[in-house]
């Protein structure tokens, strides 16, 4: 039994090693083609989140009143949440359509099929890492002008925890969605709406303390089922609240989101592997 698992694992790893070049090429391709033919090119990776932040900050600070934004430096608060959230939605949406988009290739050449959702998620990840530079620039901007300065401490290295968990989670959700959407394309439309719901369930534009939920209340607990709640909070704790880190970093949420992500990725691969031979008959 153990030997069988060993040989199976080895053949999978060998196969992955053979196609690692393809993985790299596909990640490159996704990133390169995204902004090809646009005048500003890759600069959009930087510009897009910045402009969205300005719009959202303007709307929520002026239209809905300053009250909603008093918590901290609101633009930075907003940007932290949105960057991570956007990475999740872009990665999962791209992974969801990856099998369908590559239909012509799947029908003609043999390639391990998980390469397609995996490369989609990784390309979104690279884009996300590039877009983190916006955060650096915006924080520098506020600190240099002395408006609501953010004291970034060494705790910022903890951002790696929510980032990696989000990566694993996106891969898992992406694999599930990729599998399901091959058989039922309807999922693609449904997921768009779901992402909108998720956007409001995750504290991106608001601070959870403004929701008038008592700490430990049922409503707050339900809100925390959403793993992105924990991920966004952890990310912010590491970037913004380095000084009061232990107060803001929730260990329970860390274990919960990590477990959630691992289970999702296992379910995702299991579902994908069970169905991948049938993909070609449906695309």
């Amino acid at each position, binding site marked *: 039994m153990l030997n069988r698992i060993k040989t199976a694992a080895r053949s999978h790893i060998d196969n992955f090693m*053979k196609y690692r*070049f393809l993985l790299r*090429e596909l990640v490159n391709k996704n990133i390169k*083609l995204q902004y090809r033919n646009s005048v500003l090119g890759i600069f959009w990776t930087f510009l897009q989140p910045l402009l969205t932040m300005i719009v959202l900050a303007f709307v929520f600070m002026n239209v809905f009143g300053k009250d909603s934004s008093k918590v901290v430096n609101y633009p930075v608060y907003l940007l932290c949440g949105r960057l991570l959230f956007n990475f999740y939605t872009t990665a999962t949406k791209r992974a969801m359509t990856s099998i369908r988009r590559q239909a012509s290739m799947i*029908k003609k050449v043999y390639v391990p099929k998980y390469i397609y959702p995996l490369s989609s998620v990784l390309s979104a990840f690279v884009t996300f890492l590039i877009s983190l530079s916006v955060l650096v620039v915006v924080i520098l901007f506020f600190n240099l002008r002395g408006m609501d300065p953010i004291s970034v401490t060494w705790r910022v290295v903890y951002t790696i925890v929510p980032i990696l968990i989000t990566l694993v989670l996106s891969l898992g959700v992406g694999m599930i969605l990729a599998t399901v959407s091959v058989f039922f394309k309807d999922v693609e439309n449904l997921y768009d709406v779901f992402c909108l719901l998720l956007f409001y369930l995750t504290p991106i534009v608001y601070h959870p303390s403004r929701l008038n939920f008592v700490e430990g209340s049922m409503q707050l607990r339900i809100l925390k089922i959403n793993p992105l709640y924990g991920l966004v909070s952890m990310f912010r704790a590491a970037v913004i609240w380095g000084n009061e880190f232990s107060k803001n970093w929730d260990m329970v949420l860390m274990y919960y989101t990590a477990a959630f992500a691992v289970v999702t990725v296992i379910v995702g691969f299991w579902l994908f592997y069970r169905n991948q031979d049938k993909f*070609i008959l449906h695309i």
Partner: protein
Amino acid sequence: MRFNINKEGVDNAKEYFIRLVKHELHYTEFWALKDVSFKLKKGDRMGVLGFNGAGKSTLLKTIAGVLKPTQGRVHTEGIIAPMLELGAGFDSNYSGRENIFLYAATMGFSRKFIQEKYDEIVEFSEIGDFIDAPIKSYSSGMRSRLGFSIATSVKPEVLILDEVLSVGDAAFKEKSERRLESMMSDGVTVLYVSHSTGNVERICNKAIILTQGQLVANGDASDVCALYRCMVNEK
């Protein structure tokens, strides 16, 4: 290789679930290939003959790994260059240069390896200065020339050809045939689908005939081709 043909065209989730619950999902089974077994040794060149819909392309796709057999198994060794359709791995927004690396990567080759073959590929394909233009601006001849150049330049050990010997214009056709011949003398294994017994006799040493997914003949190319010509005449 079995396919389930969906008679009623259920294509949305609601319909699917309603029928699933009511046990009304009907499929017609259709075996595109059944009981087809053969062995090829290194350096063998096998022609696959058969009328339209006999399962020739399904066979090649199964061997290339694109389709997974419902029952039974396919075992291959060595680097396979499936030329089911030339330029299948291309991305039309990518330039010719970028596509060379992409296409080769689908066959499992590294960037470094292709870098060495790059000049040879471009030269053979006769694409010239257009190599940096996006593939979508290429003519179909240019696309297949580039696809052919890549697939043959990497020195594959198994070649799967689906009537692709007619690539490009007469001059290029001659050139590509010369290249295939030199690969064959180097001992490449070939699977070749064709309707032309002339081509099969010229290229192959073995041949099979498929009829409605069944293997009806397997043997020397000249014998099988003679049999196939009889079958064509009878029809």
